[in-house]
Protein backbone atom coordinates (compact mmCIF):
# COMPACT_ATOMS: atom_id res chain seq x y z
CA UNK A 1 0.00 0.00 0.00
CA UNK A 2 1.32 3.49 -0.84
CA UNK A 3 2.16 5.57 2.22
CA UNK A 4 3.02 9.17 2.93
CA UNK A 5 6.38 10.27 4.42
CA UNK A 6 4.84 9.95 7.91
CA UNK A 7 3.83 6.37 7.18
CA UNK A 8 0.10 6.99 6.86
CA UNK A 9 -1.78 5.31 4.01
CA UNK A 10 -2.05 7.73 1.10
CA UNK A 11 -5.82 7.14 0.86
CA UNK A 12 -6.35 8.25 4.46
CA UNK A 13 -4.34 11.43 3.92
CA UNK A 14 -6.30 12.12 0.75
CA UNK A 15 -9.57 11.63 2.64
CA UNK A 16 -8.40 14.03 5.37
CA UNK A 17 -7.57 16.63 2.71
CA UNK A 18 -11.01 16.18 1.11
CA UNK A 19 -12.71 16.41 4.54
CA UNK A 20 -10.74 19.58 5.31
CA UNK A 21 -11.63 21.12 1.96
CA UNK A 22 -15.32 20.32 2.41
CA UNK A 23 -15.15 21.73 5.94
CA UNK A 24 -13.59 25.00 4.75
CA UNK A 25 -16.20 25.23 1.99
CA UNK A 26 -19.00 24.69 4.51
CA UNK A 27 -17.55 27.36 6.83
CA UNK A 28 -17.30 29.87 3.96
CA UNK A 29 -20.86 29.04 2.88
CA UNK A 30 -22.17 29.32 6.44
CA UNK A 31 -20.61 32.78 6.70
CA UNK A 32 -22.88 34.17 4.00
CA UNK A 33 -26.11 32.41 5.01
CA UNK A 34 -28.68 33.91 7.36
CA UNK A 35 -31.11 32.36 9.86
CA UNK A 36 -34.69 31.71 8.71
CA UNK A 37 -33.54 31.05 5.14
CA UNK A 38 -33.36 27.78 3.18
CA UNK A 39 -29.56 28.02 2.70
CA UNK A 40 -29.16 28.61 6.45
CA UNK A 41 -31.23 25.51 7.20
CA UNK A 42 -29.42 23.46 4.54
CA UNK A 43 -25.87 24.13 5.74
CA UNK A 44 -26.74 23.21 9.34
CA UNK A 45 -28.75 20.16 8.28
CA UNK A 46 -25.84 18.94 6.10
CA UNK A 47 -23.36 19.27 8.99
CA UNK A 48 -25.72 17.48 11.40
CA UNK A 49 -26.43 14.71 8.85
CA UNK A 50 -22.69 14.20 8.24
CA UNK A 51 -21.89 14.04 11.95
CA UNK A 52 -24.73 11.62 12.69
CA UNK A 53 -23.71 9.36 9.80
CA UNK A 54 -20.16 9.22 11.21
CA UNK A 55 -21.54 8.37 14.67
CA UNK A 56 -23.63 5.54 13.17
CA UNK A 57 -20.66 4.27 11.15
CA UNK A 58 -18.32 4.25 14.17
CA UNK A 59 -17.90 0.65 15.31
CA UNK A 60 -19.72 -0.72 12.25
CA UNK A 61 -17.41 0.17 9.40
CA UNK A 62 -13.68 0.81 9.09
CA UNK A 63 -13.13 4.55 9.31
CA UNK A 64 -9.96 6.64 8.90
CA UNK A 65 -8.20 7.34 12.23
CA UNK A 66 -9.36 10.98 12.46
CA UNK A 67 -12.99 9.82 12.52
CA UNK A 68 -12.57 6.96 15.01
CA UNK A 69 -13.29 7.25 18.73
CA UNK A 70 -10.12 7.58 20.78
CA UNK A 71 -9.48 5.07 23.52
CA UNK A 72 -8.11 7.65 25.96
CA UNK A 73 -8.87 6.98 29.63
CA UNK A 74 -11.19 9.64 31.10
CA UNK A 75 -8.58 10.57 33.75
CA UNK A 76 -8.92 11.34 37.43
CA UNK A 77 -9.73 14.41 39.49
CA UNK A 78 -12.92 15.94 40.78
CA UNK A 79 -15.60 17.28 38.48
CA UNK A 80 -17.68 19.12 41.11
CA UNK A 81 -16.28 22.59 40.25
CA UNK A 82 -17.24 22.03 36.59
CA UNK A 83 -20.76 20.99 37.56
CA UNK A 84 -21.12 24.05 39.82
CA UNK A 85 -19.94 26.56 37.18
CA UNK A 86 -22.14 24.89 34.53
CA UNK A 87 -25.17 25.08 36.88
CA UNK A 88 -24.48 28.77 37.59
CA UNK A 89 -24.15 29.57 33.86
CA UNK A 90 -27.35 27.66 33.00
CA UNK A 91 -29.20 29.33 35.87
CA UNK A 92 -28.08 32.81 34.79
CA UNK A 93 -28.97 32.04 31.16
CA UNK A 94 -32.50 30.96 32.21
CA UNK A 95 -32.89 34.04 34.42
CA UNK A 96 -31.89 36.35 31.54
CA UNK A 97 -34.11 34.44 29.11
CA UNK A 98 -37.12 34.87 31.39
CA UNK A 99 -36.69 38.66 31.59
CA UNK A 100 -37.25 41.38 29.05
CA UNK A 101 -36.30 43.49 27.21
CA UNK A 102 -33.53 41.30 25.81
CA UNK A 103 -31.18 44.29 25.48
CA UNK A 104 -31.24 44.74 29.26
CA UNK A 105 -30.91 41.00 29.94
CA UNK A 106 -28.69 39.61 27.18
CA UNK A 107 -28.57 35.82 26.93
CA UNK A 108 -25.59 33.96 25.45
CA UNK A 109 -27.56 33.62 22.20
CA UNK A 110 -28.08 37.38 22.08
CA UNK A 111 -24.37 38.04 22.71
CA UNK A 112 -23.42 35.44 20.10
CA UNK A 113 -25.79 37.15 17.68
CA UNK A 114 -23.69 40.33 17.94
CA UNK A 115 -20.82 38.30 16.44
CA UNK A 116 -22.72 36.14 13.94
CA UNK A 117 -24.41 39.15 12.36
CA UNK A 118 -21.12 39.69 10.48
CA UNK A 119 -20.08 37.21 7.77
CA UNK A 120 -16.58 36.61 9.16
CA UNK A 121 -17.86 36.25 12.72
CA UNK A 122 -20.56 33.87 11.57
CA UNK A 123 -18.01 31.75 9.66
CA UNK A 124 -15.70 31.69 12.69
CA UNK A 125 -18.46 30.61 15.08
CA UNK A 126 -19.61 27.96 12.57
CA UNK A 127 -16.03 26.65 12.41
CA UNK A 128 -15.93 26.48 16.22
CA UNK A 129 -19.23 24.58 16.17
CA UNK A 130 -17.87 22.07 13.63
CA UNK A 131 -14.64 21.56 15.61
CA UNK A 132 -16.69 21.04 18.78
CA UNK A 133 -18.84 18.43 17.03
CA UNK A 134 -15.77 16.62 15.70
CA UNK A 135 -14.18 16.67 19.20
CA UNK A 136 -17.37 15.25 20.74
CA UNK A 137 -17.78 12.32 18.33
CA UNK A 138 -14.13 11.29 18.38
CA UNK A 139 -13.94 11.07 22.20
Amino acid at each position, binding site marked *: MATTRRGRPAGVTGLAVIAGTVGIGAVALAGVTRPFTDPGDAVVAAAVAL*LLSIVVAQGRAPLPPFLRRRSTA*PGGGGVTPWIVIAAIAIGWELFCWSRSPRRDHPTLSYLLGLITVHDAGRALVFLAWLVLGWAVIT*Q
Partner: protein
Amino acid sequence: MTWEAVTIAVWVVIAAVLAALTWSAERPESSVASMGAAGRRLLARPAGRAGVILLWMWLGWHAFAR
Protein backbone atom coordinates in the same frame (compact mmCIF):
# COMPACT_ATOMS: atom_id res chain seq x y z
CA MET B 1 -25.75 50.74 37.11
CA THR B 2 -28.09 49.42 34.42
CA TRP B 3 -29.44 45.87 34.17
CA GLU B 4 -27.54 45.48 30.91
CA ALA B 5 -24.24 46.27 32.64
CA VAL B 6 -25.04 43.93 35.55
CA THR B 7 -25.97 41.08 33.21
CA ILE B 8 -22.84 41.44 31.10
CA ALA B 9 -20.69 41.76 34.24
CA VAL B 10 -22.06 38.43 35.52
CA TRP B 11 -21.24 36.80 32.16
CA VAL B 12 -17.71 38.20 32.34
CA VAL B 13 -17.28 36.85 35.89
CA ILE B 14 -18.53 33.40 34.80
CA ALA B 15 -16.07 33.44 31.86
CA ALA B 16 -13.23 34.50 34.18
CA VAL B 17 -14.01 31.73 36.67
CA LEU B 18 -14.13 29.24 33.79
CA ALA B 19 -10.73 30.41 32.54
CA ALA B 20 -9.24 30.28 36.05
CA LEU B 21 -10.65 26.79 36.62
CA THR B 22 -9.24 25.61 33.29
CA TRP B 23 -5.81 26.99 34.17
CA SER B 24 -5.92 25.61 37.71
CA ALA B 25 -7.04 22.13 36.61
CA GLU B 26 -4.14 21.82 34.15
CA ARG B 27 -1.55 22.06 36.95
CA PRO B 28 -0.01 18.65 37.81
CA GLU B 29 -0.86 18.85 41.52
CA SER B 30 -4.49 19.84 40.90
CA SER B 31 -7.24 17.70 42.43
CA VAL B 32 -9.73 18.97 39.85
CA ALA B 33 -10.14 17.12 36.56
CA SER B 34 -9.10 19.07 33.47
CA MET B 35 -11.88 20.28 31.17
CA GLY B 36 -10.92 17.56 28.67
CA ALA B 37 -10.96 14.85 31.33
CA ALA B 38 -14.35 16.03 32.64
CA GLY B 39 -15.69 16.03 29.09
CA ARG B 40 -14.30 12.54 28.39
CA ARG B 41 -15.91 11.26 31.58
CA LEU B 42 -19.27 12.62 30.45
CA LEU B 43 -18.85 11.23 26.93
CA ALA B 44 -17.80 7.79 28.20
CA ARG B 45 -21.45 7.10 29.11
CA PRO B 46 -23.86 6.44 26.23
CA ALA B 47 -26.50 8.73 27.74
CA GLY B 48 -23.95 11.49 28.29
CA ARG B 49 -22.67 11.16 24.72
CA ALA B 50 -26.20 11.23 23.29
CA GLY B 51 -27.07 14.27 25.41
CA VAL B 52 -23.96 16.19 24.33
CA ILE B 53 -24.56 15.38 20.66
CA LEU B 54 -28.19 16.54 20.98
CA LEU B 55 -26.99 19.75 22.67
CA TRP B 56 -24.46 20.28 19.85
CA MET B 57 -27.21 19.85 17.25
CA TRP B 58 -29.50 22.29 19.07
CA LEU B 59 -26.68 24.86 19.37
CA GLY B 60 -26.08 24.78 15.62
CA TRP B 61 -29.76 24.95 14.80
CA HIS B 62 -30.35 27.81 17.25
CA ALA B 63 -27.31 29.86 16.18
CA PHE B 64 -27.37 29.37 12.43
CA ALA B 65 -30.82 28.26 11.31
CA ARG B 66 -33.50 29.49 13.76
